[in-house]
C-alpha cells in the first residue's frame, strides 16, 4: 500500500514537471534569450549563467523603429475592438435574456451558425469591398472585423451572465417608467460587469495577437506588432535572433501579465461561453 502511494506521488511529480516545462519553458526561453548576449543564445547546452544585456532591445529600437508604431496600432485596434464587441454583445445579450420567443431563438441560432464560416473564406469578398470603401490599411477595418468575430460568442456569454440577474429588478424599473436603455445602463451593466470583463479579456487577447486579418488588410499605417515580428522572421538572410526575441518579448509580456492578472475572469468566460453556448 505504502509503495503504491509513493509510486502515485512520483508519477504526479513527473507529470506536473512535464506540464510546467511544456507550458512555461518556451515562453521563458524567449524572454531569457532576449537579454542574452548573442554568443550565448546559441550555446549548447543552453547557458543558464550569462551577463544580461539590453543590446537586443537597443538594436530593435534603432533598426525596427516601425515595430513600436506597430505596438501603438495594436493597442488602438485592441481598445476599439474591445469596446465595440463588449457594447454590441451586452446589448444583444440583454435582449436575448429578457425577450424569449421562437423568433428570438431563431435569430440567436443564426448568430451562432454564422460563426461556423471560416474567416479565410470571408476575406475573399471583404478584400474588394474594403478596397472599394477605401478602408484598406486603417484601424477601423481591423476593429470591425475583430469585434464581429467575437460578437456571437460575446452575446451568448453576456446572456448567460444577464440571466443570473433577477428580472424583477428591471421589471420594477420599467414600472417606474425607465426606458430599456436606461435599465441596461443603470441596472444591467453594473450587475453584469463580471461578464463584460470576461468578454473583454477574450477580445483583448485575440485582438492583440491576431495575425491573419492584419496580414491581409494592413500594410503600413495600421500594421500591427505581430506583423512586424513575422516580417523580421521573413528576412531570412539577416536573421538576428536576438532582435527577434526582444521584439517577441515586448509583444508577449504585456499580454501574459494581463492574462495572469485576469485569469479568473478568463476561466469563467471560457466555461460559460463554451458550455452554455
Amino acid at each position, binding site marked *: 500500500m505504502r509503495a503504491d502511494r509513493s509510486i502515485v506521488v512520483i508519477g*504526479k511529480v513527473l*507529470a*506536473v514537471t512535464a*506540464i*510546467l516545462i511544456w*507550458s512555461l519553458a*518556451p*515562453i521563458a*526561453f*524567449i524572454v531569457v534569450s532576449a537579454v542574452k548576449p548573442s554568443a550565448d543564445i546559441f550555446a*549548447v547546452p*543552453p547557458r543558464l549563467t550569462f551577463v544580461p544585456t539590453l543590446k537586443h532591445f537597443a538594436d530593435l529600437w534603432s533598426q525596427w523603429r516601425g515595430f513600436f508604431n506597430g505596438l501603438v496600432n495594436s493597442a488602438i485596434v485592441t481598445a476599439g475592438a474591445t469596446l465595440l464587441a463588449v457594447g*454590441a*454583445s451586452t*446589448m*444583444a445579450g440583454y435582449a436575448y435574456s*429578457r*425577450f*424569449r*420567443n*421562437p*423568433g*428570438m431563438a431563431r*435569430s440567436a441560432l443564426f*448568430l451562432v451558425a*454564422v460563426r*461556423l464560416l*471560416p474567416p*479565410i*473564406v*470571408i*476575406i*475573399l*469578398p471583404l478584400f474588394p*469591398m474594403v478596397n472599394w470603401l477605401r478602408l484598406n490599411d486603417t484601424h477601423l477595418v481591423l476593429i470591425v*472585423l475583430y*469585434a*464581429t*468575430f467575437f*460578437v*456571437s460568442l460575446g452575446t451568448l456569454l453576456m446572456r448567460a451572465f444577464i440571466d443570473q440577474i433577477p428580472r424583477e429588478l428591471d421589471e420594477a424599473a420599467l414600472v417606474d417608467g425607465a426606458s*430599456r436603455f436606461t435599465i441596461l445602463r443603470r441596472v444591467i451593466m453594473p450587475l453584469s460587469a463580471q461578464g463584460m470583463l470576461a468578454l473583454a479579456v477574450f477580445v483583448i487577447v485575440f485582438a*492583440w495577437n491576431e*495575425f*491573419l486579418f492584419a496580414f*491581409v488588410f494592413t500594410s503600413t499605417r495600421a500594421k500591427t506588432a*505581430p506583423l512586424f515580428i*513575422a516580417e523580421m*522572421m521573413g528576412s531570412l538572410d539577416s536573421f538576428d*535572433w536576438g532582435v527577434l*526575441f526582444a521584439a*517577441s518579448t515586448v509583444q*508577449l509580456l504585456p*499580454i501574459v501579465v494581463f*492574462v*495572469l492578472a485576469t*485569469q479568473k475572469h478568463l*476561466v469563467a468566460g471560457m*466555461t460559460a461561453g463554451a*458550455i452554455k453556448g
Partner: protein
Amino acid sequence: MASGRGRGQSWLPAAALPFLAPAHGLVLGVIALPALYVVWLSVTSSTFGKAPTFVGLANYIQALSDPYFWRALANTIVVVLVVVHVELVLGLGMALLFASGLPARPLLLAAVLMPYAVSEVSAAVIFRFLFDADVGPVNVALQALGLPPLEWSVVPAHGLAIVALLSIWLHLPFTFIILYAARLAVPAQLYEAARIDGVSALQAFRYVTLPQLMPAIVVAMLFRYIFAFRLFSEVWLMTQGGPARSTEVLAVHLYLDAFRFNAFGAAAATGWLMVLISLVLGAGYLWVLRRQMTSDAS
C-alpha cells in the same frame, strides 16, 4: 414583458430590435452577406477591377482538378485529426490530474494557461528556434540522444508535425479548461458511491468520469474541429506551405490561389468547399457521437 405567454410569436419583439441591431448589423454586414457574395464570386470569372462574367461550375472544376487542392485537403484532415485528438487526450489527462488534488493548484493553473496568451507569431519564433536545423536546442538534444533531428523545413511530414505541435501548444489551455471545469462539476457523491462499491480506479474512470464528461468532451471536440479546420497562421509562419507546396493546408491554399496566383474564382470555389466540409465535419461527428452516447445509455 412585451412577449405574450404561449401566444407563440414567431417574429422578433419590436422592443428587442434596437438592442439586437449592432450585433446583427456587424454579423450580417461583415460575415453573412460577404459569404453570399462568395457564392457569386465562385461562379464568375473576374480579376480585380474587371467586370465579372458568369462561368457556371468552371471554377469548381478548376479548384477540384488542382492536385495541390487534394494535397492541402489531405494535410488539413491529418493535422486536424492529430491536433484535436492529442489535445483531448492530454487535456483530459491534465484535468484528471488537477482534480486528483495537487498542491499550489492556482499557481499551476496559471502556468498551464500561459500559452493561451502567446500570439501565433511569437510561438512560431520560439518553435523555429527550438527546432532550428543547426542550433535548435531540441534538435541538438535529439541528435545527442542518437535520434534523427526534426527536419521540418525540408521533409514535408516533419513540417506538418511541427505545425501540429505548435497548434497543440497554443490551444491545449482552452481544451484543458473546458474539460477541467466539467470534471469539477461531477458530483463527489458519485465517486464516493463507486468507492463504497469497491470499484477500481480504472472502472471509476470508465463508468463515472467518462460518461459524466462526455457532453463537455463533445463540446470541446466540436469547438476544436471547427477552429482547427481554419488553420492558417501556424502553417504560414512556419513553412509557408513549402517546401514545394507540400505542407499547404486548405486556408493557405485558398490564400495563395487568391492573392498570389490571382485565381480568385477558384479560391472562392475552394472557400465554399471549405464551408461545406466544415459543416459536414461538425454535423457528422455530432451525429456519430450522439448515437454512441444513446446506445451506451440503454
